[in-house]
């Protein structure tokens, strides 16, 4: 057993005076704000992990007089619920982060895209938004925020699909490039950040990049809010320092019988017990938007895989063939193997299909179906076949 332990952090939910941070950043040059965020090495907390400071700098360099800041609150990855908690507990910090991004890139308008499943948060958010706009007025800032509501489509968490949805269309991802920093919402340069990422930028502006970098590892700086669920006596939301191994995580959150941890939700990776020790949770190992699901030995990994494939089959937008047909075929395929209609070699064919989906799909959804599929089939083959 390792003697290292999981370190709890309290930055995201720390109650702070946002107006002090706002006052500070209004007096700063936009370039200095971008530089501070760049210096922190903050990477996006939604799952993809793109350096936030770079996103901001690219957008700030664009000459267009109209730019947007978008907060991605379409938290739909199975097993992720941290953004809901952040929006519920510290909504002012989220708006503050958007204002910082707005100041950094020269945007006057921000949008929060909130998933329809979180509609119950709207009254609270509106109340907080009134306070935020009042503070902006007080500081003679004309940055404004509007809240848009989703309607139950997982794919709208993909940034370009999210733009399409705000624009009133089907949430179908766009081709990239161009990237949002040059052509995002309404075709304008756009910074789009996850809820948690924006709150991190607030804390970076408050305490400085050096403070942020004291935590974590070279590749995964800082802390991260984890959503812990499944077979665990400690389900819930925990802000932890990045850089721990799955083993350390399981020692803290497992029920003593953990056989696998799904890191990063349905689009993430399944880590089996024999790889707990060698697998780091972070960008150097298995990245996660926060979803951590523990499975103990009573669980059938076939059922887990089937559940995920069923999820993707429903949530694929259907626009591109590799994803639309691929999801369906993977689902039908594992069912056929389970029934005995296809032999175990057929699983290799399905793994090939998942790899094709990774290369040929238009967006992150189709590209990441193979993560869970490949890692579950590879590590729990016998549970799929028998």
């Amino acid at each position, binding site marked *: 057993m390792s003697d290292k332990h999981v370190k709890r952090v309290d930055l995201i939910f720390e109650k702070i005076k946002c107006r002090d941070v706002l006052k500070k950043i209004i007096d700063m040059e936009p370039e200095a704000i971008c530089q501070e965020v760049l210096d922190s090495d903050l990477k996006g907390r939604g799952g993809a992990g793109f350096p936030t400071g770079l996103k901001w700098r690219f957008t700030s360099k664009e000459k267009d007089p109209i730019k947007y800041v978008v907060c991605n609150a379409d938290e739909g990855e199975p097993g992720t619920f941290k953004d809901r908690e952040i929006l519920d507990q510290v909504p002012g910090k989220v708006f503050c982060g958007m204002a910082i991004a707005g100041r950094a890139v020269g945007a006057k308008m921000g949008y929060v895209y909130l998933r329809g499943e979180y509609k119950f948060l709207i009254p609270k958010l509106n109340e907080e938004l009134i306070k935020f706009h009042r503070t902006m007025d007080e500081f003679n800032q004309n940055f404004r925020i509007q809240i848009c509501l989703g309607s139950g*489509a997982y794919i709208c968490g993909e940034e370009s699909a999210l733009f399409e949805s705000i624009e*009133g269309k089907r949430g179908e991802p766009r081709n990239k490039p161009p990237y949002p920093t040059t052509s995002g919402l309404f075709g304008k340069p756009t910074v789009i950040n996850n809820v948690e990422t924006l709150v991190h930028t607030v804390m970076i502006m408050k305490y400085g990049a050096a403070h942020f970098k004291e935590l974590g590892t070279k590749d995964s700086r800082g802390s991260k809010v984890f959503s812990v669920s499944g077979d665990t006596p400690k389900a819930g939301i925990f802000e932890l320092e990045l850089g721990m191994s799955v083993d350390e995580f399981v020692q803290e959150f497992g029920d003593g019988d953990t056989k696998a941890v799904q890191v990063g939700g*349905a689009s993430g990776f399944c880590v089996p017990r024999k790889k707990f020790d060698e697998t780091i949770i972070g960008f150097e190992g298995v990245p996660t938007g926060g979803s951590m699901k523990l499975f103990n030995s009573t669980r059938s990994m076939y059922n887990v895989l089937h*559940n995920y494939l069923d999820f993707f089959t429903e949530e694929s937008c259907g626009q591109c063939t590799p994803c639309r047909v691929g999801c369906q075929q993977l689902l039908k395929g594992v069912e056929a193997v389970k029934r005995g209609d296809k032999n175990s070699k057929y699983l290799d064919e399905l793994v090939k299909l998942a790899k094709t989906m990774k290369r040929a799909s238009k967006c992150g959804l189709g590209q990441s179906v193979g993560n869970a599929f490949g890692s579950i089939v590879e590590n729990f083959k016998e549970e799929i076949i028998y």
Partner: protein
Amino acid sequence: METIIENELVKELANKHGRTRESLIPILQDLVVNNRFLSKQDMVDVARELDLSAADVYGTATFYTFLDTEPRGKYIIRICKTISCAMKGKNEILSTIEEILKLNLGETTPDRKFSLLETNCIGWCHKAPAMLINDTPYTELTPEKVTEILREYIKK
């Protein structure tokens, strides 16, 4: 000549949200809140009001799970079926509801009071199993708890 019957609600919502393309989804969302679903006529009327093709409105509406194009009940129950909830007894909750309301998954009660649907992850995995009734989440469900919740809704 075809007589156009004014759809007052659609007009009112277009006045509220605007008549540009980005007003479409908020209008459709409000129509669902009001009528519990989008009728074909409503979608045609929205198209006319926003100067879009009806196919475009229909295509947009049917993309989104929560923009129902089939008649639903006053209270739409959506039970989460994703892995954490599935692991923690979702099926038991489902059969309890089916028994109490005497309807099957996907159906609406004849009095149009309840619809029973499944949905994908609603973000309450740590308090599974969970469901939404319209916009309100209910978590850590047990057959007893869900019976109690439904009793309150039946009284309403």
